[in-house]
Structures are given as C-alpha cells and as structure tokens.
C-alpha cells in the first residue's frame, strides 16, 4: 500500500514542475440515455511536465472521460479544470483553444488530404484566408526535425501506415502548441520498436513542459512511461498512485478489484480437442496472395493449416493483411495466387456462398457494418445465411413463425438478451449483437470458424463469454482461425500462433513455447 497517494495537490509525486495541475477532472459524472453511468464522480489531475496514465479495463470509463476532456461530451456533474480554474469545454474547438489535444484511438485524419493539409486543419499559425502549402510544409519539417520524427509533409494520409498516421496526429498537436496531449491507447497500432520511438517523443514533450495523459489498459507500458497513474474501475476513479511505488501485480489488483492469480491463466484448448499434429488440416492455405482495396498486393505467399479442434491465432499489428486474409477465406475477396482448401478439396475464390456451403463460418471484425443487417430483426439476422436451404419454408414462402420459434431457442442457448425475436438488431448492445453473429455462425455446424477481433469493443463480461464460446467450439472439433490485434487474446486462446507482417507469415510458434518478446520481435518484422 505504500505506493498509494491520494489524488490532489498535496501529493509528493516524482513530477515536480508546478503544483497547480495543468488539467484536472473534479467529480465528473456522465450519464447516458438508458440510465448508463459511464463516469461516476471521477477525479484526477495531471501536472505540467508529467505523464499521467489513466489505467482501466475496457468499459471502465476511460473513453468517456477523454471525450469530456476534449469537449465532445459535457459532464452532467463536476467540472474540468485547466491550470487550476474551471474550463468551459463545449466543443473540441474550445478544448483545443484551452491547449488540450487528443490523439485519437480511431485517428482523426482525413485520408485523401496531405499531411500538411491535415496538420493545418481547423487551426493555422497564419491568420487570413490564404493557405500556402509550401509554407506549412516547411514548418512541419522543422517540428518533425525537432522531435526526430520521420515525416513527409506532402504524402497523402492513405499512403501511410497506422503508426505513421499516429505520428501525424501528434505532429498536429505540436503544431498547435498543445500543452496537454491525450494519447488514447496509442500503442495498439504500433510495433514494439515504433512504441519505443513514441515513448522517446513523449519524454521529450514532457521535458519541454507539456503534460501527457496516457490512456491504456496495458500494465507494462503504463509502468514504463507514466509518472503517476490513476486507476479507473466501472466508471469510478479508484485511486492515484506513483508509478515508482507500485508493481504490475498491485496495479492489476486495483484495476480488476480483486486479486488476480500470479500470471495469466491459460484457458486455451491446448491439447484438449486438437487433432494430432500429423492429421490433415480442415483449412489449408498454400502460397495465397491477394490484393488490397487499391490494387496493391497485401497478402504474400501465405501458407497455413488449421486442424480440427485447433485454435490458430494470427497475431500482428493492425493493417498487415489480417482483414484481407479473413476475407479471402470467407470468399469475400479473390486471391490472385495459391490455393485455399477445405477438407482437402479446393475452395473457389471470391465466392462467399461457396465458402458458406463448404462450412466456413465467419465472425467479421466490422460486426455492425458487415456481420448483421442492422434494421432487420434478430430472427431475420439468424436466418441471414440459412434462408436458402435450412430455414422453415413452404414452397417459395418462408415460414417466419416457425423461424421465430427456432430463434427463441438460439437466443436462450447463446444468452441473447432482447425484447424478443422481433427486436431490431441495431437496438441491441454490442455484446448481444456479437452473440447473434456467433449464434448464427455456429448453428450452421461449421467445419471452420474465422473470427476477426471477436471481442473488440465488448465489456469484460461479454468478452469472457465470447472467449468461452470459442474454446467450446474448438472442443467440438471445429478448426478456428482467430485474428486479433490484441496479443493477450491470441496468447490466451490459441494452440498455435502465426505472426503476420506486411502480408507474410513470418513465423508460426506453438503457444506453449511462445514468449511475448519473441512474438513482439516477429510482429515488428525483426525475426
């Protein structure tokens, strides 16, 4: 307990530059329609020259708090203070004028504009009407040099990797001379070496007297970069601690609210249902190549095999071909070379119906946009694939009454909580939508399940549920390809782990022997 410091100006943190906090939340409460309390009397303060971490699980209220700090939402109670006095933050613009700038989790750049155009968007050092690309490009080059960032001011955003885009977003804040930078889960899109670069930039920023609010749910990186840490749990700020005085275990306990057993429990299906290593894969990819949306090759000679009852994890930093890989297997994207085989016989590319008929189930990453038809009912969404053959019908007519009865059973089995089978899917919570997708995909008795970021955006309970379903499904002999940017999720569930880097599989390791360090090296393309 020695590490605990009560939040407030009396604390004796390692950051010593000034006692008036640069930014502070005082008793901030935010309720949403439907009685959800996303923030409940949250308080924290970040000082000048300090990296202050907001640590919490998904659903702890971090993003809502950020949206309040950056003026997107207004608090129902409490206030935000900047330099010690209450601040009126009724729009992002007002927040930026107060010096608060957020580097978004979903980056807020305009794809078709150049780096320079994005940097001056909404604010320019120059008054007046004119926008001079040359002048701005020179200014950007100067800032980039000062913080040792590699940037081409004339590049268009869509040409850049996710890591580079994040750099532009930070550059934008620096161009505006932001005094308070909020980084929301910044390392999700970075390789370990890019993370190191980011951290050294962050250290330079605080050395220059700026404050950084660092939002994360990852303990090691919080310990590595933060001066002080405020822990959020279920919408409340639990406490604020000095980073120097705590260890990961203590932080984990504060974050979850109870003691966690040492190390992570592996619930994986290891060995339980997986077929012996010499058995033929139910899904086999051989030298598969495919192009991305803009005609550039994004999958290069991917060879991979998933055996019945096995979970194969695809690890990698976002944007290295994961989406395209899932789409090729599901038939939503044609491969340009190589073969995909299901149960030993070749699958025709670019034909989703063929993939469905061959027993490939697919839980897409974009569940609202692709996985469901949001304005249709739960029953209709459960029929989305089976209406062609298995749905109850009389001649050409579908029998919706009987379909409703069937979907009631599925709703029971998969714990889908709604007003009934006629509820529209767009009215459901994220967790329930994902359960609808899983119920439909698994009720078709698939041979293979491709699951892309199946727990993204879900709360802790729903995540647990989804993971449990995946493990059970594997036990029943289905081969699962689990694609995720969350390395913990991959390590926790997989039997084997393949790492995708720039469209290539750079290595496949047995999960039992895998180490984070080794996987991290591979994800960075260093192995």
């Amino acid at each position, binding site marked *: 307990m020695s590490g605990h410091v009560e939040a407030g100006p009396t604390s004796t943190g390692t950051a010593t530059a000034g006692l008036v906090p640069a930014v502070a939340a005082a008793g901030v409460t935010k309720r949403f329609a439907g009685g959800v309390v996303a923030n409940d009397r949250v308080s924290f303060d970040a000082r000048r020259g300090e990296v202050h971490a907001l640590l919490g699980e998904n659903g702890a209220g971090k993003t809502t708090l950020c949206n309040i700090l950056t003026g997107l939402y207004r608090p129902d109670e409490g206030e935000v203070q900047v330099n010690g006095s209450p601040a009126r933050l009724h729009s992002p613009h*007002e927040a930026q004028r107060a010096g608060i700038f957020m580097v978004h989790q979903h980056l*807020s750049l*305009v*794809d*078709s*504009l150049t780096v320079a155009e994005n940097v001056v968007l909404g604010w320019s050092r120059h008054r007046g*009407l004119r*926008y001079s690309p040359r002048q701005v490009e020179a200014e950007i080059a100067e800032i980039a040099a000062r913080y040792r960032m590699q940037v081409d001011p004339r590049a268009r955003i869509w040409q850049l990797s996710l890591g580079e885009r994040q750099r532009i977003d930070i550059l934008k804040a620096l161009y505006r001379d932001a005094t308070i930078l909020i980084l929301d889960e910044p390392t999700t899109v970075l390789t370990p070496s890019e993370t190191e670069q980011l951290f050294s930039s962050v250290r330079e920023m605080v050395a220059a007297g700026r404050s950084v609010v660092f939002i994360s749910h990852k303990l090691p990186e919080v310990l590595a970069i933060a001066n002080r840490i405020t822990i959020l749990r279920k919408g409340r700020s639990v406490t604020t601690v000095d980073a120097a005085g705590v260890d990961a275990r203590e932080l984990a306990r504060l974050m979850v609210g109870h003691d966690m057993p040492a190390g992570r429990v592996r619930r994986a299906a290891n060995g339980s249902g997986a077929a012996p290593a010499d058995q033929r894969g139910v899904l086999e990819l051989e030298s598969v190549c495919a192009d991305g949306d803009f005609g550039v090759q994004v999958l290069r000679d991917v060879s991979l095999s998933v055996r019945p009852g096995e979970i194969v994890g695809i690890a990698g930093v976002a944007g290295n071909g994961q989406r395209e890989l899932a789409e090729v297997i599901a038939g939503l994207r044609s491969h340009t070379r190589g073969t995909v085989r299901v149960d030993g016989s070749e699958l025709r590319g670019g034909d989703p119906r063929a993939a469905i008929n061959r027993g490939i189930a697919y839980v897409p990453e974009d569940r609202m946009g692709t996985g469901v038809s949001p304005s249709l009912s739960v029953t209709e969404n459960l029929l989305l694939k089976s209406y062609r053959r298995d749905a109850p019908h009389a001649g050409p007519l579908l029998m919706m009454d009987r379909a409703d009865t069937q979907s009631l059973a599925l709703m029971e089995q998969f714990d889908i909580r709604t007003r009934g089978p006629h509820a529209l899917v767009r009215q459901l919570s994220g967790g329930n939508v994902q359960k609808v997708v899983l119920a439909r995909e698994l009720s078709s008795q698939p041979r293979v399940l491709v699951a892309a970021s199946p727990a993204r955006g879900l709360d802790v309970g729903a995540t647990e549920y989804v993971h449990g379903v995946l493990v059970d499904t594997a036990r029943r002999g289905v081969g699962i390809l689990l694609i995720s940017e969350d390395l913990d999720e991959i390590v926790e569930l997989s039997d084997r782990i393949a790492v995708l880097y720039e469209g290539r599989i750079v290595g496949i390791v047995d999960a039992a022997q895998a180490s984070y360090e080794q996987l991290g090296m591979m994800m960075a393309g260093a192995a």
Partner: protein
Amino acid sequence: MNTDLIVAIVVSAIAYGTPLVLAGLGELLTERSGVLNLGVEGMMLMGAVTGFFVSQQLGGPGWAVLIVAMIVAAGAGGLMALIHAFLSITVRVNQIVSGLALTIFAGAVGLSSYVGQVWGIGGQHGLHQLNRVDLLGLGELPVVGPILFDQDPFVYLSWGLVVLVAWYLYRTRFGLYLRAVGESPRSADAMGINVTRYRYVHTVVGGALAGLGGAYFTLAIAPIWTDGLTAGAGWIAIALVIFAFWRPDVLLIGAYLFGALSSLGFTLQAHGVQMPSEFFSSLPYLMTVVVLAGASTTLARRRIGTPASLGVPYAREEG
C-alpha cells in the same frame, strides 16, 4: 471543316455550356461539403422565372436591371437550396429523395410554373437581354476574338467563378476545411470545424449558382419564359460534376463539351447536314450515360474523387 464552322460550334458550345458551368460549380461546392442535391433542375427553373420576372418589372438602365435580376435569381435558387439543406443536414432525411422532392416542388409543373402564371409572364417578350461585350476591342480578332473576347458578361462571370472556386478549394483555409468536411466530417468536427455550418453555406451557395445558371436561359440565351425551359440541364450539371471528378477546371471543359453536343444539331442543320432532330436532341443525354459509365470505371480505380461522405448525414454521436 472550315474555321468558321469550328468557331460557330465553339461559340454556341460556350453559350449552351455556360448555364452548365454555373449550376455545375454550384453542385460541385455542395457535393464537396458532403451534401448531394438532386434539386438542381428545380433551383435553375426558379432562378430562370424570378430573374425574368424582375427584368420585366424594373425600370432603369438595362445593365442595372439585369444585375438586380441576376441577384434575385441567385437568391431564389439559394432559398430553394435552403429547404434541402434543412431537411438533409438538420433533419437528416434521405438526400436523394429530398433532392427529387425539390425538383418536383420547384420544377416544370411545380412552383416555377405556378409563379410564372401568377406573375403572368408566360407570353411576354423580354425587355432586357444580356448582350455581348467586346472586351478590349479584341472581338474582331480572327478565331480567338469571337471565342474569348466577344461574350456576354455571364460568360466572363462564369470564367471568373471557375478560377475563384479552384483558388478557394485548393489555396484557402476555408476551401481546405470544406474538402475535409466532405471527406470526413468526423475528423473535421474533431478539429473544431463546424460541419453543419459548412454544409449549410455551401448548399445554399450551390443553390444560388444554380439559380444564376437558370437565369442565363431567360436573361441571355432567349428572353422568354416557358414552363420547364431548362429541359434537363440541371441533371446534366449533376452528371458533369461526376465527370469532372469534382474539379472545377475539368468541369469547365466538360460543360463546353456538353454545350457543343446540345447545339450540334442546330449548327449542323444550319450547314446542311440532314439527320432526324431527335438524334441530335438525344446526344447530350446519351453522352451523359456514356460519360458516367466511363467515369465510374475510372472512379473505381482512382482513390481521389467522390467526397467520401457524399450523401451521408452527419451526427456527432453516431458512427
């Protein structure tokens, strides 16, 4: 072909193309902000009828009357656009249906016809018409004279507007913000740009330019008013924006190409070429189909072009 014929074709291409340039520029600005307004035909007709009415009513020197008529025409177009702006930006209705509604509301059998009858301007012969202005006395030059230096003020205005819009889009802060709003209203909003205001302003300005384009029919081409006299020019203007990949310079060229097609029949018949008139009349429409099909294959390959948020209402709390 001899030079005279070519000059004649180019001159009439400019005459028929000018309303397309004006209305097209307007729609370009509107679409760049992410709003699709299919009501161009209706807005043009309202501009045409109000402009003509004002020019018939006012006394005073011709040039002053015509300037007031143009301003009123632009105002009428802008007012029509405001209806669409309210419905599509604030109420967030389907922009396609709202635009169609605007065309029905203001169009050939709608409000423009109604006010035309109420004002009783149907059979009147116009008192004022925009005349050619021989710029710098260079109109007598061979070939370039009649094309570049002997046009009516509307044509010079349209050229000025093309340059102005291009400069605005690519060399001013507000133009940059506009492009951002059309591409990614979310990002623009996050950067403190007022998405709603940008969309309103550019939808209304787009309507004003469509109103001006309509007024060109009744104040310059032929000073009379008949119901539905724009004959689909508004729709061609919308197609032109796609053809031009949302760029003002390309739009100018495209508009004159379509202008040449529209006038080709008359020009060729005047030079003794025999063909059914329906064939020539259908050329601009058929060309639009061909051009759209061609542009869509190119658009599929190119990354830049359609504003990414075109036709999608923006609300901050939604995805």
